[in-house]
């Protein structure tokens, strides 16, 4: 996926035909980070009430993200077919939000792989681990494409 152009707040990406099913499949996995993981809270400090409020807000946010994701991916005005693939139009706010979604998938997959502590990841590939390793790499691939697009705009 590459940025083709930016006009105003609209970023137009070229999504090659072979990458679209990968994008849809990886996004379909959201949310992946376990709700009780420290990445999503469970601070050592703060009161139990503080933590409960944070947990509730986060759970609500994930549900909203799931709904928004479905709407975005079904919007044919945003993703138009071309000869070689698709043109996908996203706003800066969409990109910011998609980064959160993709990173949840990436981090969650890493957690399911046992949170290996170095890159290259020392993970034994098996039927159980391959889907997580695949999701982690794919989410990272699309994440980098979005970060590059924001930087090219001077916003990153």
């Amino acid at each position, binding site marked *: 996926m590459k940025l083709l152009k930016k006009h105003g707040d609209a970023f137009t990406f070229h999504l090659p035909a072979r990458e679209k099913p990968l994008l849809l499949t990886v996004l379909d996995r959201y949310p992946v980070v376990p709700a009780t993981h420290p990445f999503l809270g469970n601070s050592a400090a703060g009161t139990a009430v503080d933590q409960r409020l944070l947990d509730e807000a*986060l759970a609500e946010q994930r549900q909203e993200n799931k709904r928004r994701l479905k709407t975005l991916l079904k919007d044919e005005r945003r993703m138009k077919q071309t000869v070689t693939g698709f043109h996908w139009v996203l706003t800066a706010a969409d990109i910011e939000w998609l*980064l*959160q979604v993709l990173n949840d998938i990436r*981090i969650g997959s890493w957690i399911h792989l046992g949170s290996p502590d170095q*890159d290259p990841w020392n993970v034994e590939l098996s039927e159980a681990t391959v889907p997580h390793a695949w999701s982690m790499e794919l989410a990272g691939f699309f994440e980098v494409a979005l*970060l590059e697009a924001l930087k090219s705009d001077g916003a990153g």
Partner: protein
Amino acid sequence: MPKTVTPEVAPDIAREEREKPRSGLEPGYLVICWDDPVNFMDYVTHVFQAVFGWPRRKAEVHMLQVHEQGKSVLTRESLEKAEHYVHQLQKYSLHATMERDE
């Protein structure tokens, strides 16, 4: 005309501040981001910019502090604001916590 001396009665500001009870509105909570081996450095820098509105250079300094020292204190805020920032950072899947600044 004799010079008069006006007694100065200055408020004991230091004592008042010491005795003032802490409240949720008082800035006294640290927002901390912890290192992890998985988030892209570029991503973390971007998140700091997006959440705090920092220029890229400042965001990079904190990102490197997280990376090299294991954590970075990002800001000191009231309870309400600290909770807000922690929530924002967690939305991006960064490991963030808040601690009372004793």
